């Protein structure tokens, strides 16, 4: 009796798992395996044309591609902008929304709001903000006596990537603010009270209590920053498409363009494998690094 009940439960368990297992395997795992396999072939994307086995040639082409180096440099700029721009801003915003002042909810909402807007809408909004002939940024620069600066930063080879990182920071600061805010909530109030009794001012409390006790928030930030930068695509694609020229290219735009513009699907799949392996390794390495450092505490 008990045996048949367990057996029945097992069959029901399998039936319950089946839809998810099939869906996930079909949508996620099957394409994942296919990317690895197809990265060894040359293909122009036309279904009827044959695949040509080329071994690791696609990877060689990838590493020799000067645009790969540009993408590598731009991903580095993305990571740096995360640490130098998003980190301080979102930490600051977290302290603001934690201060429980009047209008707190309004501030919190306005800081986080960009996160829910579609990236294409954001790109279009910023395209108009930076419109060279009378856009608001150009109007502001005129008013400040900076007429000589061309505000079309997204169309400028040198500045495009930096302009994108600023738009990216505008989008993600509120999201990272919540990570730090959740970390601050986790610090017991008594620690601050004890510090106030001992005469610590607000800067000292930030320096000696808040920041050291936010270690895990910093780790989450760094992990998201690095993985997010490696795999960044939409933000660049919708603002500059990797241009002008190839100035703001990242790995994602190279993958996309090589497939759908240059019909070089082998290269794209090799880039796909590169992205999968790199982000997987980066998150595995960082997670174990953080785990080790937390154990030492």
């Amino acid at each position, binding site marked *: 009796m008990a045996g048949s009940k367990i057996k*029945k*439960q097992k069959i*029901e*368990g*399998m039936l*319950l*798992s089946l*839809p*998810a*297992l099939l*869906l*996930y395997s079909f*949508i*996620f*795992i*099957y*394409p*994942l395996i296919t*990317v690895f396999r*197809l990265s060894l072939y040359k293909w122009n994307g036309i279904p009827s044309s044959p695949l040509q086995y080329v071994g690791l040639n696609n990877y060689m082409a990838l590493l020799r591609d000067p645009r790969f180096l540009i993408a590598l440099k731009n991903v580095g700029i993305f990571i740096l902008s995360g640490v130098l721009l998003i980190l301080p801003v979102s930490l*600051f*915003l977290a302290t*603001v929304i934690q201060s429980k*002042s009047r209008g707190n909810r309004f501030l919190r*909402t306005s*800081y*986080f*709001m960009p996160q829910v*807007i*579609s*990236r*294409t*809408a954001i790109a*279009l*909004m*910023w395209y*108009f903000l930076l419109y060279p*002939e*009378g856009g*608001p940024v150009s*109007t502001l620069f005129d008013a400040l006596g900076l007429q000589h600066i061309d505000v079309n930063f997204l169309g400028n080879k040198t500045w495009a990537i930096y302009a994108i990182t600023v738009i990216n920071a505008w989008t993600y600061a509120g999201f990272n603010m*919540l*990570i730090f805010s*959740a970390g601050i909530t986790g610090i017991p109030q008594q620690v601050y009270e004890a510090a106030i009794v001992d005469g610590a001012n607000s800067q000292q409390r930030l320096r000696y209590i808040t920041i050291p006790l936010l270690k895990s928030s910093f780790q*989450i930030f760094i*992990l*998201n920053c690095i993985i997010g930068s490696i795999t960044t*695509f*939409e933000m660049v*694609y919708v603002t500059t498409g990797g241009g002008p020229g190839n100035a703001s290219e990242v790995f*994602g735009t190279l*993958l*996309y363009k090589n497939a759908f513009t240059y019909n070089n*699907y082998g290269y*794209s*799949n090799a880039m*796909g494998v590169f992205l999968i392996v790199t*982000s*997987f390794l980066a998150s595995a390495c960082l*997670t174990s690094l953080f785990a080790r450092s937390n154990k030492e505490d």
Partner: protein
Amino acid sequence: MGKWTIGKCVYWLLALIFCFVFLYPVYFTIISSFKNNNEIWNTMFALPSSIEWGNYVSAIFDVQILRAVLNSFVFSAGACIVVVIFVTMAAYVVARKLIRGTTFLRLYYLLGLMIPPYAMLIPVVTMFTEFGMRDKYLPMIFLYAGINFPMSFYIITGFIAGISRELDEAAIVDGANTFQIVFGIIFPIAKPGIFTGAIMAFLTVYNELVFANTLLSTKAMKTISVRLLGLQGERFTSYGPMFASIVMSIIPIMIIYLLFQEKIEGGAVAGAIKG
């Protein structure tokens, strides 16, 4: 509130400046959406002298932005429903170890969290082309459900694992089968967690670009992201309709955000801490 030192004033001034920085682009978009073409440029704050409803008429009939909003809603809602049902069933089996290999299943599902879905763009596009699934609602809904599966699974499993087993056992004694337990007992209790997972999936799909841009090519099927992206390349005699299109595509998601603010913010944090 304590006394106002210079440091404190600077601090709050900075807080307000950031508030301005985050809100201004939206403000500019909204005021411009009501202006005629001559009034949009060379100003930062000026309100429209008369309201130009024609921009919205053009956004609806020329850009067909409402159609795009509707499409985005269909994909989002559809993917949400599929994800919620599939994930709840799968998460219950894994959380209760009902079958062998649940440890493997868990890792197998969570593997998806570490992979950027667009890296698999080409096989997915090839698959969709081969089976004639482009420009169709159902295949896209299942694609989006699959892409969002790992994150929803991650958020929802945590909630289900926290539910006491005694409830299941009592139901088994009463003769309930596993399906009845999942949808009659677990589902109502885990609703807050399930809802968080669902709304995060909704947001992701509503704003998704890469797969929609490659798999939806007929105008009637396009989502807001694809439609807005197309606007950059199109020639318009006036900019007002473009601003109106942006406004109309972000209003629904803003309303959803304001209604479910705590869920969305909580879900964003939960999703970030997946390391």
